[in-house]
């Protein structure tokens, strides 16, 4: 057993005579090569695509633009990424079960419109928030029921609810944006904890809660089990249908929360189609190293993935790269990440 992979430059090989003390030298040498091996394995890069990519991006853009690595800009990036972070966490729950939520952005739009209408109707701010998030949650539940009870595949079911939510948002708002002026919303946009804006504080709180639910509760374990092998999960007494319903409810509710953050950012509830958020939420999850096949849950990865995408857009803008190139850059990064996930050690 004691034959380490000899590294020609390691200290082991430095012993010139033919009789190196076989016992002690290799143990430290092999541990060193093991660690070096970590970096040589493609799977290491694949597992950590999001943090490594983010680090690289920060270094490169810091060199290219003097503004990039300033507290003001970092704070702006985090602020801008808070919506996507919340959406990516919702998407991550769904993708862990092997599903996909194509309706997530449309559900957010619907939530925003319902909030806007309730606010316009003179309701209290918090009631409007509750109604907005409630509407999104219901939309998520609809997807969940279609999938768990109706046995419709995730792709088709959420394609359907995407259309329904988009349509409802347009019909309810009559296609017009609803401008919101509220003190609560203003304090949400301007409030800060140190350099971090309140929206990102909310997103980070959601991330911590999501991590706890996913990795420290039976429910989270069941989500991973259903995604890994529904058959085995059911054989062990997991109610797979309920789990599938639950992840879409979570995704819907988080889309509703994202809707509030979106309104705070834009200052209005717009029935506009926010398809970029859908693609970016999936992209963030893929960047975060979550396999679309399901079974392997990650929360920190998608969160970093979302921040990475926003940092990329931010950096390109600072460098004066035309907006037209930004989807291209995002697309390339995602494809690269997807290629890398093939090398994840499963």
């Amino acid at each position, binding site marked *: 057993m004691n034959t380490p992979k000899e590294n020609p430059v390691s200290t082991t090989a430095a012993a010139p005579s033919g009789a190196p003390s076989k016992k002690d030298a290799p143990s430290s040498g092999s541990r060193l090569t093991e660690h070096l091996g970590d970096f040589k394995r493609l799977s290491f890069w694949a597992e950590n695509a999001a943090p490594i990519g983010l680090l690289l991006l920060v270094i490169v853009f810091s060199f290219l633009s003097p503004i990039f690595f300033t507290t003001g800009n970092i704070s702006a990036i985090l602020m801008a990424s808070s919506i996507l972070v919340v959406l990516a966490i919702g998407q991550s729950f769904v993708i862990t079960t092997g599903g996909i939520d194509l309706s997530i952005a449309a559900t957010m739009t619907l939530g925003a419109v319902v909030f806007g209408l309730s606010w316009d109707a003179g309701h209290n701010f918090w009631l409007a928030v509750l109604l907005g998030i409630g509407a999104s949650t219901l939309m998520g539940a609809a997807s969940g029921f279609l999938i768990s009870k109706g046995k419709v595949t995730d792709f088709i079911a959420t394609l359907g609810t995407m259309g329904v939510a988009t349509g409802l948002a347009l019909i309810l708002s009559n296609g017009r944006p609803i401008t919101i002026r509220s003190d609560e919303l203003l304090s949400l946009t301007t409030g800060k904890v140190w350099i971090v804006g309140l929206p990102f504080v909310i997103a980070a709180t959601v991330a911590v809660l999501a991590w706890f639910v996913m990795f420290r509760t039976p429910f989270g374990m069941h989500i991973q*089990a259903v995604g890994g*092998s529904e058959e*085995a999960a059911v054989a062990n007494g997991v109610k797979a249908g309920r789990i599938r319903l639950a992840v879409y409810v979570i995704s819907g509710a988080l889309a509703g929360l994202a809707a509030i953050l979106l309104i705070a950012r834009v200052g209005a509830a717009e029935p506009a189609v926010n398809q970029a958020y859908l693609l970016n939420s999936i992209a963030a999850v893929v960047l975060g190293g979550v396999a679309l096949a399901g079974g392997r849950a990650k929360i920190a990865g998608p969160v970093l993935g979302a921040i990475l995408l926003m940092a990329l857009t931010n950096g390109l803008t600072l460098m004066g790269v035309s907006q037209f190139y930004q989807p291209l850059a995002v697309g390339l990064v995602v494809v690269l990440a997807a290629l890398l996930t093939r090398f994840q050690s499963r």
Partner: protein
Amino acid sequence: MTTTPAPAPADTDVLLSATGITKSFGGVHALRGAHLTMRRGEVTALIGDNGAGKSTLVRCLSGIHQPDGGEILLDGKKVHFASPLKAREHGIETVQQNLALVEDLTVWQNFFIGRELTKGVGPFSMLDRKKMKAQSLDMLGDLAVNIPPVTSRVRRLSGGQRQAVSIARAAGWSTSIVIMDEPTAALGVQETARVENVIKTLRDKGVTLLLISHNFDQVLRLSDHVAVMRRGLTVAERRATDTSGDELVALITGAKES
């Protein structure tokens, strides 16, 4: 009746007895009045050709199927298993042929899926990971020679290790019977030997086992009691010490009526 149950040794008592079990799927009569007797602390083997009804009978015992007729007595009391969960509540654990392991989860997670230990109350209850890891280690115990760490993902385990994990899980949770459906069917020679050792360890611990197998040598090596099925009926029961591979083959094929 075509059968005469083999005489029971005086020192063992009957833990499970199924009589007159019938089960049809559409027009197919999979079981036509099968019976089975299992004694406490023994390994009972169930053998028969493909389509003889072994799997159907086992599925009736583990709650996957509900028999159309007949009765199952567990410890002298009549039982009815509406679902696999009900069978589990009665202490009957099954090692399924596909092992029912989630490859993306760790060994200890697989031990506890569906019956997690938690600490705290209500919305603050969280997984008691420490306790579950410790108990998994206990359950794996001395069962396997090369036991995998309980924190490794099942995906990384060999076929034999997976089998051992699945068996250890069933044995750990079982309070009455462990059913094993073809536990070595997909394994190589070495792995088969390892799994047989696991089964022997369980037998020596006094666990009551029901073993479905195609391998007569294995059946004779491991079991105390053999039930032979043919065309939906139990056609013979033998003490393993009183029979031979040749006789079992003859009973299975129908060349020899019991």
